[in-house]
């Protein structure tokens, strides 16, 4: 039986359980006229039975589906003839993969011999049996749970409290998914990164000056070791981030100042939503614009003044990224400026300073922590931005500070190392996770500092 059919069936049973539970609760007190004798509303008895019917069965189902592939593979491997017993784990994985493909009727990468055929048949057989068992067990658990709950219905059963307890537990589970996501990120990145650092020392990764992750297929080829010095990636990331900040911070800040202090409400009503649009454009679209429109412009401009500009320059990616970040900087600065008490502004104006003097000498210094926090968040955003740099910044790991040259960034390398076929035991693939770890740690620090500064500052004037 398909698991979707099983889930549908369970849903149907839960609905039926609700109906029966509700009816029984009314029956125990002698009809709807006496419903006031029940501890809870009749519907809660229905939910109570439905929960006992569906929840254990669904838990069983998910646990089973999680364990099934592992168990079946182990059984199939055990059943393989002697000749396969000596295979290394990698070869065994490949073999298992092929058996699975053969079982589902997909293309197989090795010659099909009768033994493999038999293993595939066995695989299908086990899966079929497992599904039958699962269906039987899940439906049994559902019926059993429902029946037990149904029997326990009495007028003084505190059905509402029990149902609400389950709801509360579900709510807690939902809110802890955020924690599990973080743990998942940390663990998945950390494990692979540790594997990587076993092959490549941390010091070489952090301080090495050459990045060429291409490892050769044969051991005796030139450059077979690859070299994993990530410094060019860090400088490339910093260069592009610096360019982006060079665009985004002054423009974003001045925009926020103008819209908060100078513009008429009409201009603000038009300009603000327009700038919000900038924040809503997908990054891949910015990347396309950077690579196919801005980069050629910059190159033409460079040629006309006699500068050599690479077709994938740090400048194009950085400028476009800066424009993307303008709304972020301007809205966070706007918050910070608006949080400064009106009394300070009025005081400065009352003493005869012009509006720009009020802004520069009173409001901005007061709002500075908030603005800096916002800029930190913007920096973290720029460091983690992927699509623009993948499309416009290039792949060559140059150690340079020249914005007209092509540089590469941490995110670009993660993408290039992981797109396409991967093997999880090569340093090349694992390097992506080490870079991911760096990226996560750095952006996390920036975010934590930025968010706490912004929040602390907001509270200061409240």
């Amino acid at each position: 039986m398909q698991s979707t059919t099983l889930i549908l069936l369970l849903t149907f049973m839960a609905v039926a359980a609700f109906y029966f539970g509700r009816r029984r609760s009314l029956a125990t007190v002698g009809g709807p006229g006496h419903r006031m004798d029940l501890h809870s509303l009749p519907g809660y008895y229905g939910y109570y039975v439905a929960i006992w019917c569906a929840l254990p069965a669904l838990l069983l189902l998910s646990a089973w589906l999680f364990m099934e592939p592992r168990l079946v593979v182990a059984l199939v491997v055990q059943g393989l003839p002697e000749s396969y017993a000596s295979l290394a784990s990698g070869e065994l994985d490949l073999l298992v993969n092929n058996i699975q493909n053969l079982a589902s009727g997909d293309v197989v990468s090795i010659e099909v011999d009768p033994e493999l055929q038999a293993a595939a048949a066995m695989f299908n057989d086990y899966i079929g049996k497992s599904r039958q068992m699962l269906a039987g067990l899940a439906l049994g658990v559902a019926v059993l749970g429902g029946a037990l709950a149904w029997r326990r219905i009495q007028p003084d059963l505190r059905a509402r409290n029990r149902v609400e307890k389950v709801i509360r537990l579900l709510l807690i589970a939902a809110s802890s998914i955020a924690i599990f996501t973080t743990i998942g990120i940390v663990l998945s990145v950390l494990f692979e990164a540790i594997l990587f650092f076993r092959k490549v020392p941390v010091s070489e990764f952090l301080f090495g000056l050459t990045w060429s992750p291409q490892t050769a297929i044969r051991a005796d080829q030139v450059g077979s070791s690859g070299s994993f010095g990530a410094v060019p990636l860090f400088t490339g990331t910093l260069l592009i981030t610096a360019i982006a900040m060079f665009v985004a911070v002054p423009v974003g800040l001045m925009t926020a100042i103008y819209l908060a202090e100078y513009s008429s409400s009409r201009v603000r009503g038009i300009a603000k939503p327009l700038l919000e649009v900038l924040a809503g454009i997908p990054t891949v679209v910015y990347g396309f614009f950077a690579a196919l429109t801005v980069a050629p412009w910059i190159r033409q401009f460079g040629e006309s003044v006699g500068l050599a500009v690479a077709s994938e320059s740090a400048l194009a990616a950085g400028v476009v990224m800066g424009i993307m970040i303008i709304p972020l900087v301007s809205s966070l600065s706007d918050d910070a400026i608006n949080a400064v008490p009106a009394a300070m502004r009025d005081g400065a104006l009352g003493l005869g300073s012009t509006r720009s003097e009020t802004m520069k000498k009173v409001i901005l210094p007061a709002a500075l922590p908030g603005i800096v926090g916002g800029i930190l968040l913007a920096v973290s955003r720029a460091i983690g931005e992927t699509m623009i740099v993948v499309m416009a910044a290039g792949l060559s790991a140059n150690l340079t500070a020249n914005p007209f040259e092509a540089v590469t960034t941490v995110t670009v390398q993660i993408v290039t190392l992981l797109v396409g076929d991967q093997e999880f035991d090569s340093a090349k693939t694992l390097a992506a996770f080490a870079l991911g770890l760096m990226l996560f740690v750095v952006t996390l620090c920036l975010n934590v500092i930025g968010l706490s500064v912004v929040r602390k500052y907001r509270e200061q004037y409240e």
Partner: protein
Amino acid sequence: MGNKLTTSEIVAAGLARRRRKETTFRLLGILATAVGVLFLGVFFATLIAKGASAFKQTFVQLEITLDAEVIAPGGEIDLEYADFDGLVRTALRSRFPDAKSRADRRELYRLISVGAGYQLRDLVASNPDLIGAKQSLWVPASSDVDMLLKGNIDASVEEALRTMSDKQIAWVESLENSGEIRSEFNDALFGNGDSRDPELAGIKGAVMGSFYMLLVTIALSFPIGVAAAIYLEEFAPKNRWSDLIEVNINNLAAVPSIVFGLLGLAVFINWMSLPRSAPVVGGLVLTLLTLPVIIIASRASIQAVPPSIREAALGLGASSTQVVFHHVLPLAMPGMLTGAIIGMSRALGESAPLLMIGMVAFIVDVPGGFTDPATALPVQIYLWADSPERAFAERTSAAIIVLLGFLLLMNLAAVIIRKRMERKW
């Protein structure tokens, strides 16, 4: 005494300078605002200028004889192996008898898309009675012809430097003069999956992939997000654990999206061995990505429900769970929906994490389910943007216009929901 300036004189002396500074500062502000708005203008102008032409496609009229000998060699119709391309070529040769040499003919064949053969096959499959008859058909021209007619190939440059030879251009002109070439709405762009041939490439596969992915995302992230927001706002005790969850959510909202891709690769694909390139995995990753957005928006809208509502319900004997589900939730729903739509529009535009979980594959078939290999619309844009052909640049812009159109619709929906259902307390 006389040479000492009074305060008002000092102020008056500096006034001109201060006013000048004031004006400069103001102008800088205007300039900064203009930069953003101007960029937006330039951006949309170039996008439309580049992409608008992709909605049209060039077709060529050919007199094609559906030769029974070719289509049904032994009396049986052979749809799989019959040489439909050959029929198109025969028709081309009879239209341009002057192409005699092999090189000329090869150039001639390049005027027509390989899609013409498929079109013939589909025609015969749906209507076998046509076999043996002579048909006048509009078949898609190759992308080179398309680009020439859209003005993207300059006929005045040296022959060796352009993709079309002088002869080809002459043939196209002759077709043009006799009215055998026309430009029609580009059905292929919306009806086909991806293709190596620009004139046959479409976004349907990518749109469907995005659709399945967003379906998974909304089905998971909305209930989970709302539940988490309810717990944090209404039930969570003020303790370390709640603080931890709160800090976590705020941080997750700012974690680079590519890191979620790494998580998806390591957990969903490697550890849980879910299928690669499948919308269901993309949907799971995007769920984790959009959850913080939805939780934050939902919390804000729960906070906006005045406490008096809760107190009134509690006072009438409702339990705290009943208060939340019967009163707070319905009142906070518009805000939550708006947050969900905004989260979805972020998910729709996201591409970096999808690259990690293998949704960048070249996939021709339109996906028909949650586990079929698929790409997403933004990833398709990324793939096409990498293609060197001129015609793909045009199609990339068109795909971007479609993507932005979807995003616009979603945001409009969010605005409308907010305006319609918003309550002022």
